[in-house]
């Protein structure tokens, strides 16, 4: 709808340059955290392709031993681990636990989840190694 110029809103919209996230370390780390999703999604896509190839043992073997695939894992793993760390750091924000009158410290809640993540990873590794080990 066309409004007369005088009635148009004069509110100031602060321009936000596209590189705002380079200005401060905290902003850059935020952007890095948000961009971990590309590697999380990328790995899910890899799993999908791996599953699609898993009807043929030779194609599957070639894929898991391919140097290119290993390089992609080397690049993506640190980003996915960064997702894990930042995600688990947020657990105290959604999990509020009271022990009597006292609120359980957010550091403790996050630490327990980090420890749980490590233990769970080791358990999965040990189980898979027991089943599929060399």
């Amino acid at each position: 709808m066309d409004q007369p110029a005088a009635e148009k809103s004069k509110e100031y919209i602060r321009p936000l340059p596209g590189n705002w996230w380079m200005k401060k370390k905290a902003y850059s780390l935020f952007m890095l955290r948000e961009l971990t999703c590309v590697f999380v999604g990328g790995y899910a896509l890899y799993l999908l392709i791996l599953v699609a190839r898993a009807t043929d043992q030779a194609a599957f073997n070639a894929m898991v031993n391919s140097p290119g695939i290993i390089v992609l894992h080397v690049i993506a793993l640190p980003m996915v681990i960064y997702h894990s760390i930042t995600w688990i750091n947020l657990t105290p924000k959604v999990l509020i636990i009271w022990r009597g009158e006292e609120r359980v410290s957010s550091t403790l809640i996050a630490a327990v989840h980090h420890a749980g993540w490590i233990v769970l990873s080791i358990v999965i590794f040990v189980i898979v190694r027991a089943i599929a080990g060399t």
Partner: protein
Amino acid sequence: MAKSNEPIWWSLFSAGGVVAAFFLPITMILTGFAVPAELISENGLYDLLHHWLTRVYLFLMISLPLFHWAHRFRFAVADLGLKDKSGMLPVAVYLAAIVGTILALVFLIRL
């Protein structure tokens, strides 16, 4: 309050975030490093992949992280100052996650 699909996408984003945080790093170590390092055999991994429990696991590892990506990526694009002129970005990312989920289901059942 206006009706919105937001809670559905946010829940899937969140579920994907949890699953990715706790399970993806070790899964990546298993698929990317354990075989070349000869900690697990490719034949053993191949057989394990066909177990029904692993297939359920892989379904969750594919579908939920895709929805996590879709939701976060969409907002990251906006945060980077990139304009979604056509307005199709949300549709495109969620549709990609839905298609990925369906394909995962098809491939995993077929195994």
